[in-house]
């Protein structure tokens, strides 16, 4: 008989004991350790997930901050660009106006200088012309011319009849202060007589005339009495010439001064 029933029972008991022993020393601890490890791994994974989420959130925060920073920087750049542009325009405008002002000042200065130069030139030219005329007339003046001058003077004396007559009448009437006749040259006796006759004829009364020589006259005759005078001489022409030249120069100066401003 191959089966010994006592042995069978013993082996059943042995096996049940072995089951209990292995359950206590093998399966339970191993399973516990594995469960713990799994729990730890799960916890670590959860931690990792949490940390990853945290990191992603932080990354998102940083990205947002970056975007905001970029936007702000862009805005500031734009603002500073606009400010710089405005400043540039203002500067440009200021510089332009300054340049404009300088240009205007310069033109005015140029115009002034031009005017001054022209005025100077004209006055010099006029003086020169006058001097030349004076010199020429002086050079030409002689006895014959004196006669012509006296004749012209007497004709003028006849023409000047109304107002000056009254003016001379009173002082002439007094006959206290002699009338003075100025001439450029010493008048010869016959010319003096003609003048005296002319004046007496003009005034209709006898008068005493005092004859004097005045080099200023250049060429001509002048009758003075009590601050009044009747005269003909070249100096008058020259004076009126000078006067007309001066007024002409003023007109030209006005024109040259105004011309650049109009541009």
């Amino acid at each position, binding site marked *: 008989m191959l089966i010994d029933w006592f042995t069978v029972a013993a082996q059943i008991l042995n096996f049940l004991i072995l089951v209990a022993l292995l359950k206590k020393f093998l399966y339970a601890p191993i399973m516990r*350790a594995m469960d713990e490890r799994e729990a730890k791994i799960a916890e670590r994974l959860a931690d990792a997930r949490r940390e990853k989420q945290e990191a992603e959130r932080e990354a998102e925060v940083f990205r947002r901050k970056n975007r905001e920073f970029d936007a702000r920087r862009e805005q500031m750049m734009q603002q500073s660009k606009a400010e710089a542009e405005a400043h540039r325009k203002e500067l440009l405008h200021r510089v332009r106006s300054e340049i404009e002002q300088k240009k205007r000042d310069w033109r005015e200065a140029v115009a002034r200088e031009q005017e001054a130069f022209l005025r100077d030139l004209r006055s010099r030219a006029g003086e020169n012309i006058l001097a030349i005329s004076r010199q020429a007339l002086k050079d030409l003046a002689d006895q014959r011319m004196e006669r012509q001058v006296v004749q012209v003077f007497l004709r003028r004396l006849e023409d000047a009849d109304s107002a000056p007559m009254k003016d001379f009448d009173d002082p002439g009437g007094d006959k206290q202060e002699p009338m003075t006749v100025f001439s450029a040259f010493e008048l010869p006796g016959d010319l003096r007589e003609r003048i005296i006759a002319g004046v007496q004829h003009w005034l209709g009364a006898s008068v005493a005339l005092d004859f004097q020589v005045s080099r200023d006259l250049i060429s001509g005759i002048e009758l003075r009495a009590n601050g009044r005078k009747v005269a003909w001489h070249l100096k008058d022409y020259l004076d009126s010439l000078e006067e007309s030249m001066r007024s002409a120069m003023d007109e030209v100066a006005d024109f040259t001064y105004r011309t650049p401003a109009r541009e």
Partner: protein
Amino acid sequence: MHITPDQIVFWQWHWASLNATIVVTWVVMIAMAFGAWLVTRELSSGMKLSRFQNLLEVIVVHAREQIRDVTRQDPGPYLPFIGTLFLFIAVANILTIVPGYQAPTGSLSTTAGLALCVFLAVPAYGIRKRGAAGYFKQYLKPSVFMLPFNVLGELSRTLALAVRLFGNVMSGTMIAAILLAIAPLIFPIVMQVLGLLTGLIQAYIFAILATVYIAAATKVQQKREGSEPDQQKGEISNG
């Protein structure tokens, strides 16, 4: 030359005998329990673990996977019983490489005991899972007339479990012994290696059949309860 280690008797008192089967079983039990205690007294639940802990974890994990694959249930309640069946038979068979060792699984008494354990564990698990009425009702399916056949099938598969394991291990030992007498050099080693392989396969077959029986008993929705385990048994036996 003994067919079974039962015949090596160390101590006899009336019908109770202390034979080699029991003694070697004790030795194997002590070795397994002590080894497990040695490894598991300092278990690590961290990422770094010892070599032996890793080995035991691999064994336990694969045992659970096999049980889950077969039963399609939580392997927790079945692991101690089925895992111990496999480990005991495997260790007992592997130790045959030790000279003078008599495998307790080479004793029909041991295999009968283990088969009786399976025979009792199947209704135990079935009743716990489905209740007594639910479990015993399956013997009346598909009809009442099938009851004797179902009971016979229950008994015969238990007998087959016991005899299969005994026959394989015993024959392996016998062949090794006979070859040792015929060709003492080298050839017995090949047979020993073959014996190791056969021992492991038998351990696996015994455990997986027990799992199949238990799974059949504990499945809530069964279509062909009697035939399915027998069919699988047949396939594995033929394999």
